[in-house]
């Protein structure tokens, strides 16, 4: 049957793209080839609607060892011959369909991106967003997703050390699941996702291939080939045990020097890995598809090419070294099959039992090669007028200390602020014996990079309500907060990976959010000298009621050359002085207080100035390095009051503090203006701290004193810190139990 534009459209290619394909091939593609283009030119593989703007981000410099997008994950220099490999990726849509397996395979996919570069993953993070926690559906989704992340990560054996969880109504139908992994590699042992050397053998290793994740193409196939579709599983099942073996086998095989290049199979499985590896090396491949180990019988060429079965790798070896490869995978009881060889004509030729099924130029399939790139229109969203119209004078300030106390009690129990322990205890956070958070919490997780003598500080951050209020400034804040968390933990921020979760890019108002957020992110990343090493874009997080908040999640990595430079967030002993570093601001915009307690949907982004933030971070970094503070914790959701309380929980220490200005009470205690950090210091060292802060010319004020357990605010007794901790720890558990 002749392939027409209708078939192309069924496979989500446009009429223009179909013309382009015919032009590039010099003929009409057959069905298998059309499937190949459809997969490779999808948003997921080609970034066709986003790449123009992604290119404006700082993508090189600093400690980067490979340019952004060149490899499966970012690689940065740690010094001493070691590199850190990291990346964040979304698995939003699969998690909405099947929370457990969707989240599990998301974790599996991101781990493969790390070890396919020769690195051993040492830390996982995740950034999750759900609808209202009071809703039963949200609770089910959360339980499934958390269970899935734990199931995969715990078994795979990489600790989940940090992350964030937010609950906002806009995520009700579209939860976000962003998973990040961080690994360590000997820079002499990294492996590239490239194919080189005519005649070199190509190996398929890992799990057998089934008809997973090819639903869309299969329906099109039914129409085109007039065969009936079978019921295809819409869900991919993750097997962390298989992946653990794959990890060990891959790292072992790399020690043999038999490997030319390696790439994992994620989206668009075999076709994507063969195309990208070939294009990168400027070569072609001859692949005999019948040699691919399969889980199901009678799989067709296009099914094999598109399948997204998990836990698989493509590996190019040096000719003559085949036995070394086979030996390692046999040791680990993993399928390993030689499926073809490298050619020098740039063509990908896929054969099935000797018959040529597809013949396409690799270069034309990939991003940066022949894949199309689009400029989309964008217009300023109408809702931003409502945001500009907000005036905080319309909200009455808290009447007295009692109202302040009640506000604090409500805030500490909001799901966005309360302890996430119901979630975090389900993750193995300690395997690897490298996570220093367990016994000494800090703003970013500080993880030992064993063997290197150094440690890494890692965090994910994005307050999407800020981004909604002002996409440019909100994205700047996401980067700034990530950097602040790392600085407060004693680390030096070195690089970023991003996960850009947005609605439909064909909606100009959504695309405006995307463009502005990328611009703001770029601005901040340049300021902090944290280049963007890669990441992923997830569009279409949208349902008939509208898109999710624009959510450009920032994953940031920092380095500690000396673990003794680590700073924890908690008060150390009664009698220590508590200081606010940074300026109090008369601003309640976009705070949890304003949004949740006053139910204000539209308000300004919190006060933020990039220069001020940078200076603050420089000052705090210096204080920590000079050992002038005993604890440091930044101010974020819930404002100063929540920061003061959180600092007390680890050691059951209270505080006696008073407001230092006459701005609105709610702004002083609950406002979320940026660029502020609370530190504590032994009384005897307070003078030295003040002197250093004056030299740094950063605003600061003495808030009060750490106490044995009593909480006192503006002279009023607020009870024991343990009562506050109990509320904080159990709020989410109670909400779940009530249902």
């Amino acid at each position, binding site marked *: 049957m002749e392939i027409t534009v209708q078939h192309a459209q069924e496979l989500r290619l446009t009429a223009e793209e179909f013309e382009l394909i015919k032009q590039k091939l010099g003929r009409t593609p057959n069905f298998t080839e059309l499937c190949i283009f459809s997969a490779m030119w999808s948003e997921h593989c080609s970034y066709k609607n986003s790449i123009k703007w992604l290119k404006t981000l700082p993508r090189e410099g600093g400690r980067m060892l490979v340019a952004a997008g060149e490899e499966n994950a970012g690689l940065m220099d740690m010094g001493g011959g070691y590199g850190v490999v990291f990346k964040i990726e979304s698995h939003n849509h699969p998690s909405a*369909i*099947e929370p457990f*397996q969707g989240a599990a395979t998301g974790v599996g996919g991101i781990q493969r991106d790390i070890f396919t570069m020769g690195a051993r993953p040492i830390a996982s993070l995740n950034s999750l967003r759900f609808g209202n926690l009071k809703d039963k559906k949200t609770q089910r989704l959360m339980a499934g997703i958390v269970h899935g992340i734990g199931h995969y990560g715990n078994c795979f054996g990489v600790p989940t050390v940090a992350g964030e969880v937010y609950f906002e109504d806009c995520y009700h139908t579209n939860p976000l699941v962003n998973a990040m992994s961080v690994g360590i590699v000997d820079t002499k042992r990294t492996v590239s996702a490239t194919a080189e050397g005519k005649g070199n053998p190509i190996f398929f290793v890992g*799990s057998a291939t*089934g*008809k*997973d994740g090819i639903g869309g193409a299969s329906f099109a196939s039914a129409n085109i080939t007039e065969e009936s579709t*079978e*019921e*295809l*599983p*819409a*869900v*991919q*099942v*993750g*097997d962390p*045990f*298989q992946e653990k073996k794959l990890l060990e086998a891959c790292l072992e095989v790399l020690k043999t020097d038999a490997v030319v290049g390696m790439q994992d199979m994620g989206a668009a499985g075999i076709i994507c890995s063969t195309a990208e590896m070939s294009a990168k090396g400027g070569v072609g491949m001859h692949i005999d598809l019948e040699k691919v180990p399969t*889980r*199901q019988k009678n799989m067709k060429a296009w099914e094999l090419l598109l399948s997204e*079965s*998990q836990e698989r790798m493509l590996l190019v070896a040096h000719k003559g070294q085949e036995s070394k490869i086979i030996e390692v995978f046999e040791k680990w*009881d993993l399928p390993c099959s030689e499926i073809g060889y490298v050619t020098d004509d740039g063509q990908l030729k896929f054969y099935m039992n000797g018959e040529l099924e597809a013949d396409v130029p690799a270069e034309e399939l990939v991003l940066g090669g022949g894949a199309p790139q689009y400029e989309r229109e964008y217009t300023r969203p109408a809702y931003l007028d409502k945001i500009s119209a907000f005036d905080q004078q319309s909200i009455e300030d808290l009447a007295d200390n009692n109202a302040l106390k009640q506000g604090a009690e409500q805030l500490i129990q909001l799901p966005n602020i309360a302890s996430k322990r119901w979630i975090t205890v389900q993750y193995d956070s300690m395997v690897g014996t490298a996570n220093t958070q367990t016994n000494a919490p800090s703003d970013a997780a500080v993880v030992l990079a064993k063997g290197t003598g150094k440690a890494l500080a890692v965090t994910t951050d994005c307050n999407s309500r800020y981004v909604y209020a002002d996409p440019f400034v909100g994205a700047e804040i996401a980067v700034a907060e990530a950097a602040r968390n790392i600085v407060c933990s004693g680390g030096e921020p070195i690089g970023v990976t991003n996960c850009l979760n947005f609605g439909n890019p064909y909606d100009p108002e959504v695309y405006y959010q995307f463009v502005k957020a990328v611009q703001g992110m770029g601005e901040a990343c340049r300021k902090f000298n944290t280049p963007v090493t890669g990441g992923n874009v997830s569009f279409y997080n949208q349902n008939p009621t509208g898109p999710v908040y624009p959510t450009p999640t920032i994953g940031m990595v920092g380095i500690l050359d000396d673990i003794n430079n680590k700073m924890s967030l908690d008060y150390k002993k009664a009698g220590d002085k508590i200081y606010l570093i940074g300026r109090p601001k008369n601003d309640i915009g976009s705070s949890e207080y304003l949004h949740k307690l006053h139910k204000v949907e539209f308000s300004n982004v919190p006060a933020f100035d990039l220069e001020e933030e940078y200076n603050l971070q420089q000052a705090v970094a210096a204080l920590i390095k000079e050992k002038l503070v005993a604890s440091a914790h930044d101010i974020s959701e819930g404002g100063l009051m929540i920061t003061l309380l959180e600092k007390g929980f680890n050691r059951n220490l209270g505080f006696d503090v008073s407001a230092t200005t006459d701005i609105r009470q709610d702004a002083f205690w609950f406002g979320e203006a940026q660029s502020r950090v609370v530190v504590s210091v032994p009384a005897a060292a307070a003078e030295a701290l003040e002197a250093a802060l004056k030299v740094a010319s950063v605003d600061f004020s003495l808030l009060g004193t750490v106490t044995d357990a009593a909480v006192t605010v503006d002279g009023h007794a607020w009870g024991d810190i343990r009562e506050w901790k109990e509320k904080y720890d159990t709020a989410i558990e109670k909400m779940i139990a009530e249902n």
Partner: protein
Amino acid sequence: MTYHVQINVMPLKDLLDPQGKAVMGGLVNLGIKSVNDIRIGKHITLEIEAESAEAAKQIAETTATKLLANPVMEFFEIEVVG
């Protein structure tokens, strides 16, 4: 009248069953090499108060559809045993 109903919940035919696969590996360690495939599901027994076997089956069907099996990943078979 009380009916005993048995429900087998199994992973969908074409879905990967990691557990079955791992158990296959274990059998090889035991020296048993003649087993071609293993798929592992759940066997559930119910005691149902109903007016007829047909009605009991209906109730079992509802429990399986709504709760016992996840249709995205599993199918089930029902047998009324008496």
